[in-house]
Every structure is written in structure tokens, then in C-alpha cells.
């Protein structure tokens, strides 16, 4: 059990590509940290640097209180769950789980206890004598996790472990992973590109873009107060709508705009902060034409084209209001729910 301290970590590939720049992160013991961002943002590279599978160009990495920059993966007391599981195909599940312990010289009895314990926790006991090819995707994923569990390491590193599962299984496994982590209280570093996974799993989120940290915070903090344009558009689905301040000015909504700081050029509106009924609190009013009506079960998404806006705005409503495509819709956004940004710096202005 240990925390992870990342100080000014950088990774530059030979050839000059800067994969990861100036990462500073302080992970407490037992915390579940999710690294989230689009493809190529450096999240996997960062994880692999912590694992020891990528070298660190500059900066310090500490696991516990030990500087581990130059240690082999096997010596860092970490366990990893890979995206495509990386199970040894010619070994039984039992041997897959036991391999890491065997290499570290554990006694046979110890190995047996640990393997069976992990198998029980993950409900894969009946598979111990089978080979990976006889298992389904979800079962293989559990074996991959079991391999990490038996090691009882200082930290778990998980590299998009759920991406290869179908949607239903993914939701199921998400819940299990969260429960497991709470039970074991092991520091965990989890990489995903799925912002919903990130929101539901992490104690804290680290949003990455282009090799740099955009924002670190609890899921709700990041959701309610995105610090940069990137985080605002990445977290939350459907994505936040961006309105330019001129659009509102043109519609005479001037008073509402006074509260925003200098340099504000864009205002973000979350689809669920847009209402069909006029709210009591100070608000702005807009109207648009309903281009597309998307029923999504318990809710519906309305795609509205607003004059002066380049892209349609997406609005979330409960249920299925009887609306016609092509009709004009009035909607209201409380000014307290607007997120102001400076388009040149990309940063929040309040």
C-alpha cells in the first residue's frame, strides 16, 4: 500500500515527439485515480512510465517514498491489467495467476492460497484448470485482474481494461472494479478514453490532452466547473454547447452578460441546463429550430439550430415531449449555469 508521487514527469521520444510534458500528480494511498483523455493524449504513456515499461526522460517518480525511475517493472511492486489481457495462452488460468508469484520465489502453499483467494473474489474458481482460449472475453478479463490481485502490490495499473468488452458487460465490470478497489483499498491508476467510465470510477479524475494535464479534480468538480474549454467539451455527454458572447449580445441579453469577467468570449451550456420552461432565477432566452429529435429512452435529445451559431445545440429533456421536427423551440438557461471561457487562452474566466 503506497501513494504515488509524480513530479515534473516528461517523456520525449527519440525523434523529438513530446508524448508527456510536465506532469505533477500526488496520489494518496488507496486512491482511485482515472487518467482520461482522447487517443494520443499521453495517458497510456504516463501509465506505462509508472509501470516501468517506458523510460522517463526527466522528472521524478516515487512509489511509496522510493524513487523508482530506474527500477525494472518487476521491482516496483506494481501489478498491471492490460487492455487485451495478455494472458499466457499455453498456461492454465491457475498458472497464469501463479506465474508472477513463482518468479518471485513464493512458497507453493502461499501461491495456492493467494490464487484461490483471488479466484474466489473474482468468481473464476471453476476456470482454474482451463486455458484462456476456452474462456469468454469477460472471463479472460477477470483472469487478467486476478493476475494483478494475487500480487497484492503497492499499486494497480489498469490500461483501458474494459475497452474490449461489449457494452453490457462493461457496465457490469465497472461496478465490480469499483467494489473490489474499495474492498482492497489499493492505490489504483486507471486509464480510459470513455468519460463516463472515468466519472463513475474515479475518486479523482486527471484530464489529459496533448501530453499535458488539463485539470485534476473529483468527478463532480470537473463536471460542474471545467477549467478549460477542452475539459468542458470532453466531460459530459452529450457534450457542452458553446455559444459566442456576441450571439447573446445580438439578442439583447446584455444584463446577464455583465457578470462575466474580461476576455470572456464563449459561454458553455450543458444540455441538461437548458430548459423548455422559463425558470425563476436570472436566465437568458434563446430560440431555435428543431432539426433532429433523438429519443433515447428515459430522455430525449433535441438538436436545435440557432441563428448565428455555427453548430446545432443539443438539449436534453426528460421523457418524449410531443415535438415536431422543424418547429421553433424557445429555451432558457439560468445564468448561473453558464460556463464562461476566454477563447484565446482556453481557460475559464470566473
Amino acid at each position, binding site marked *: 500500500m503506497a501513494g504515488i508521487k509524480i513530479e515534473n514527469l516528461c517523456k520525449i521520444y527519440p525523434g523529438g515527439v513530446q508524448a508527456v510534458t510536465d506532469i505533477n500528480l500526488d496520489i494518496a494511498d488507496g486512491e482511485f485515480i482515472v487518467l482520461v483523455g482522447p487517443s494520443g493524449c499521453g495517458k497510456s504513456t504516463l501509465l506505462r512510465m509508472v509501470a516501468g515499461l517506458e523510460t522517463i526522460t526527466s522528472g521524478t517518480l516515487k512509489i511509496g517514498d522510493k524513487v523508482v525511475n530506474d527500477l525494472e517493472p518487476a521491482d516496483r511492486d506494481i501489478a*498491471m491489467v492490460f487492455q487485451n489481457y495478455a494472458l499466457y495462452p499455453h498456461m492454465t488460468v491457475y498458472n497464469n495467476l501463479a506465474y508472477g508469484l513463482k518468479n518471485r520465489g513464493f512458497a507453493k502453499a502461499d501461491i495456492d492460497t493467494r490464487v484461490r483467494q483471488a479466484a474466489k473474489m473474482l468468481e473464476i474458481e471453476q476456470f482454474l484448470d482451463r486455458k484462456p482460449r476456452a474462456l469468454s472475453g469477460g472471463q479472460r478479463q477477470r483472469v487478467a485482474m486476478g493476475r494483478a490481485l494475487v500480487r497484492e502490490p503497492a499499486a494497480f495499473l489498469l490500461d483501458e481494461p474494459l475497452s474490449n468488452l461489449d457494452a453490457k458487460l462493461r457496465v457490469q465490470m465497472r461496478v465490480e472494479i469499483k467494489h473490489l478497489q474499495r474492498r482492497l483499498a489499493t492505490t489504483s491508476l486507471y486509464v480510459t478514453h470513455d468519460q463516463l467510465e472515468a466519472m463513475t470510477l474515479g475518486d479523482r479524475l486527471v484530464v489529459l490532452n496533448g501530453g499535458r494535464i488539463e485539470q485534476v479534480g473529483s468527478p463532480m468538480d470537473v463536471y460542474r466547473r471545467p477549467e478549460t474549454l477542452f475539459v468542458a467539451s470532453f466531460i459530459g455527454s452529450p457534450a457542452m454547447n458553446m455559444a459566442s458572447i456576441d450571439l447573446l449580445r445580438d439578442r439583447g441579453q446584455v444584463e446577464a452578460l455583465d457578470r462575466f469577467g474580461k476576455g470572456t468570449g464563449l459561454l458553455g451550456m450543458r444540455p441538461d441546463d437548458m430548459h423548455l420552461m422559463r425558470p425563476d432565477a436570472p436566465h437568458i432566452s434563446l430560440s431555435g429550430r428543431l432539426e433532429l429529435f433523438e429519443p433515447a429512452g428515459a430522455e430525449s435529445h433535441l438538436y436545435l439550430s440557432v441563428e448565428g451559431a455555427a453548430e446545432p445545440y443539443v438539449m436534453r429533456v426528460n421523457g418524449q415531449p410531443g415535438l415536431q421536427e422543424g418547429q421553433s423551440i424557445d429555451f432558457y438557461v439560468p445564468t448561473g449555469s453558464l460556463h464562461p471561457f476566454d477563447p484565446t487562452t482556453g481557460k475559464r474566466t470566473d
Partner: protein
Amino acid sequence: MVESRRWGSLFSHLILILGVAIVVFPIYVAIIASTHPPGTFLRGVMPLLPGPNAIENYRTALTEGRSQAGAPPISLMLTNSLIMALAITIGKLSISILSAFAIVYFRFPFRIFFFWIIFLTLMLPVEVRIVPTFQVVADLGMLNSFAGLSIPLIASATATFLFRQFFMTIPEEMMEAARVDGAGPMKFFKDILLPLSVTNIAALFVIMFIYGWNQYLWPLLITTDPDYYTIVMGIQRMVTGGDSEPLWHLVMATVVLAALPPVLVILFMQRLFVKGLTETEK
């Protein structure tokens, strides 16, 4: 697909049966000839149906050889061939898989240089360097020895390339997981890589065994002591040596014995063999 093929498939079968006949004919003839007494060949045409002397001829061939032409008993030559073929096969497989492992899983100075040196061997079959290679082997005192018969032939690159190609298809995570699991390079090689390579090794075994067994030019050059003759080169002495017409019944018996082991290997491991061929050459 719906098609009318009334005469088509009959025609196909005919062609194939004819083809098989052409292909099988020579060995058929050899087997037949090996079952006849010597006198049959002094008059008329070679027979097309089996004769009565099968057991006799084979026994003679195996035990006496053909002393006039200086060929030792076939059984000795068969043994020599077996040892040579196995030495070449095992030798080739071992050094190739180790080299491929080094080239794929390590980064070190001169890696590319070594790769090209190995690649060069593809362009230097023994036939283009016979005299100087003979000189080297003679200088090293390796004439008339199993070492001399096998070692100069085991370094060629085809197996190395096949293993390299195969290793490149193994997912990266396999090795990373092993590393995280505390396995060093040789442990990884023994516990993970080798078991995964078993099919490739088996397929290559077939091809290399045949290659080793059928070696002709090289054993011809470096063995002057009949005790080291191998069967495939030994046959030549029975056919072209001497002024008299060769003793065809014995020659054919020898031919059948010489061709039998590789043919059996192919027949029993056909699928592996085909896989090995089509993958080596990619």
C-alpha cells in the same frame, strides 16, 4: 454457385489422376524394380509389375552394399544420413531461434549489422562457395566427420527469418505482462516464447529434416572415407561407378530406402509441412 458442369468434373478427375500417375510413376517403377532378381535387367524392358525377390534384395542392400563400387552397406549410410539430418535440423533450429529472439527482443549496438550478416547467408548457398568452404573445413580438420557434415550448413537465415516474423506477431503485452510478473529474458524465452513457437518449430523441423537428409553436394565433397558416406550421395556411386551396367535391383532398393524417411515424414506431418513452407517464404 449454380453451374452446369456435366463433363467438367469428370475431365478434372481425369487430369488429376493422370497427374498423380505422372508424379507417382518414378517411385512406383523403383519399388517394382527393387523386387526383381538381377537377371531381369539384362534382357528386355524394365518390368511394371512386382517380382518375387523383395526381401532378398533389401537384405543384400542393407548388409552388403555394393563392394565393387566402393559403397559401404546401406544400413551404415542410412545411419550416417540420419545423424547428419538430425544434427543439421537440431542445429539450425537452435541457433536460429536464439538469434531471432536476440534480434527481436533486445536493442543493442550493431543489431542491424548482425541482422545483415545473417541475411547475407541467404545469398550464399553452398554451391557458390564450394571450393573455399571446402578449404576452410579441411583446414579445421573437419573432413570426414559429422561435425563437418553438419556445422557448415546450419547457419542459413530462413529459419531465423521465420522465427523473427513469428515473434513480431506476438502481442507486445505478452512480454510486458511477463516483465511485470518478474520474468527476465531467458525465463520469458523458456516459459512463454518457446511454448508459443511449438507449431512453427514442428513445421520447420519437417522442412529442415528433409533438407538435411537430402544433402548431396556437400557430403560428396568432404567425405573420402566410405564410413562417412551418406545414402543420397552414396547412390550416385552405384549408378555411375564401374563399367558394367548398374545392378538396378539393388540400386532401386537403395533408392527406395533413401527416399523413404523424408517421404514418411512428409506424409505424416503434411499439414505442418505445408504451413512451414508457405510461411517460411513470405
